[in-house]
């Protein structure tokens, strides 16, 4: 429903939206398929070459007209094609069960990785800072290293013995740090406790005049600290990345919650990214995009710049979705042609391998474009939802709780023609008319 409504954004773009979203992909595939036809049937090329200039002009005009008509049909089908890739129409509905399992497995895997990352980050921070749990005190690595260094500072720098090429445990940490990979707590701990005995009996001195062993020990001391902080930041960065990936690619958690929700997991990646817009608005503000989208769209027009960026994102999404659909269509057409008419094993295999690869690449790009579009849509909800209330001559809510109730009541009244609350009482709407 929302996908079809969203198509109205593009219609306001006029020629540009039609050109980029429909004519370009159609022309691109017409040219590629035309080249393939001339390769398989050289007589077709010969036929075109033999035409006199008048016939060629006529053929070009007819081809252009056919291209425009096909592009118009493609444009009209855009929302249906998008819904198909979202898993709402056949043939994807035939595979709904297995596809849903795949999406659920991907989501569980993502949540598992996120949880592992949070656990690893917590363990690492506990290792760096230490912890004071009931009954036990665990000193932080920084404290342990500092204490060892203090003990070693009583020694003479000239007596220091430390391998200038480092110790194996620290070298392993260094390799991971240089490569920008995560450093597990166990590796860091091993490096810290391998360095401590050296620090305790040798003086670490970074002075330029100090002996080489003392300077190497000082460098190792600095290096292990830097590696600890890098490891912490690396886990933190990965945690945020995984969190965003989960929130902006899946509309729900893998496990259902006690609160009722109208949003469930879609059977395709594109479907799930698309649903994140609805889930974001619903979960954060109780804003029902299915009901309120056209009102929000009207509010969006108050900012030409923002509305244009929303249109651009939608056109980009339509372009890649059209490419993916045309790639599948061309693949099926060529497989049938090779099988029944051309009968070339090589051509059949090439169509069967190259076609799906191109289609999957286009689908992958469509998913990326959809993620961008969904992000712009979420921003639209954030920025323009109060404008919807103003346009409807309704008072602005003082807080989030009141806002959620307001949107829920509004959706009930406007979208579902339901004038009663869940407890049976009437929904009360008070207008606020401007001066």
């Amino acid at each position, binding site marked *: 429903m929302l996908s079809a409504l969203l198509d109205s954004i593009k219609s306001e773009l006029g020629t540009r939206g039609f050109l980029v979203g429909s004519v370009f992909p159609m022309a691109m595939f017409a040219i590629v398929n035309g080249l393939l036809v001339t*390769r*398989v*049937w*050289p*007589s077709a090329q*010969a*036929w075109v070459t*033999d035409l006199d200039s008048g016939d060629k002009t006529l053929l070009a005009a007819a081809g252009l007209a056919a291209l425009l008509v096909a592009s118009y049909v493609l444009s009209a089908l855009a929302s249906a094609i998008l819904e198909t890739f979202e898993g709402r129409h056949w043939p994807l509905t035939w595979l709904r069960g*297995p*596809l849903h*399992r*795949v999406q*659920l*497995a*991907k989501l*569980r*895997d993502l949540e*598992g*990785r996120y*949880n*592992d990352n*949070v*656990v*690893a980050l*917590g363990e690492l921070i506990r290792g760096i800072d230490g912890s004071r749990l009931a009954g036990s005190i665990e000193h932080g690595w920084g404290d342990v290293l500092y204490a060892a260094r203090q003990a070693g500072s009583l020694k003479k720098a000239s007596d220091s013995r430390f391998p200038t090429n480092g110790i194996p445990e620290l070298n392993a940490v260094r390799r991971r740090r240089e490569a920008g990979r995560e450093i597990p707590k166990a590796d860091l701990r091993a490096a810290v406790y391998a360095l401590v005995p050296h620090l305790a009996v040798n003086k670490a001195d970074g002075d330029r005049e100090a002996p080489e062993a003392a300077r190497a020990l000082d460098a190792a001391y600095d290096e292990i600290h830097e590696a600890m902080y890098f490891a912490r930041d690396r886990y933190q960065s990965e945690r945020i990345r995984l969190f965003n990936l989960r929130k902006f690619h899946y509309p729900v958690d893998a496990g259902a919650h006690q609160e009722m929700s109208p949003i469930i997991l879609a059977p395709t990646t594109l479907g799930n990214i698309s649903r994140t817009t609805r889930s974001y608005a619903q979960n954060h503000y109780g804003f029902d995009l299915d009901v309120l989208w056209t009102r929000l769209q009207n509010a969006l027009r108050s900012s030409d710049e923002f509305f244009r960026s929303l249109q651009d994102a939608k056109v980009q999404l339509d372009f890649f979705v059209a490419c993916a659909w045309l790639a599948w269509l061309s693949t099926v057409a060529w*497989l049938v042609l*090779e*099988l029944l*008419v*051309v*009968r*070339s*094993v*090589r*051509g*059949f*295999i090439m169509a*069967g*391998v190259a076609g*799906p690869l191109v289609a999957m690449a286009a689908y992958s790009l469509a998913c990326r474009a959809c993620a961008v579009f969904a992000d712009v849509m979420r921003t639209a909800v954030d920025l323009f939802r109060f404008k919807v209330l103003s346009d409807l001559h309704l008072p602005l809510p003082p807080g989030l709780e009141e806002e959620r109730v307001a949107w829920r009541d509004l959706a009930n009244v406007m979208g579902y023609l339901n004038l009663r609350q869940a407890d049976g009482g009437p929904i009360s709407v008070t207008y606020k008319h401007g001066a």
Partner: protein
Amino acid sequence: MGRRRTTRSPGARTTFWTVALGAWAACLAAGSLWITYHPRTAPADTPAVEGCRTAADKDGMRGFAATRALAVNHLVRQDDLDWSHPAGGAQRDDLLSRYLTCPAAANERVIAAETAPRPTIETPAGQVTIPFSLDGNPAAAAAINAGSTIDVFNGSIAIVRAATVLAVECRSGTTGDCAAILAVAPDDAPRLAAANPSTARVVMTKP
């Protein structure tokens, strides 16, 4: 509630993609087998005329002039005939990708009635005919034709020398999926049959 490390198995994703790719590969294999056992049938043949006409006989007939001398069983390609001057409203499709049933001298008119969709192979006395795939030699496939003579090498070792090309058969178009029908000495045939066409080198010694 504290978080604990989770153990994950590939499970549904791996199964799905294994089944999907396996099913697709099976469909491609089945289609390939079907094509192999159901090759393209030749278009309806133009009834061949008994004997070959002289150049004067063909003057008033529909056709195109040969750009050079063409042997019997020559597979007609783009550069064999002068397509820019069709005689009597001749169509390129009447001749392109067909085989000559009569030889034609340079500038002599070639007519559809003296072509066939398939070559007619007559094995020279004391020799055997053997097809040799030209898939690994696209340049050779485009250059050689009936009447050519070729050498076939495996690296620097000659497999067969001076083999006469009786015809070139192509599955699609005029240069794709081609095989040369060669006339060779009986002793050369097993070596040629055992040669790997994708790695063998084909050298044309006479066009």
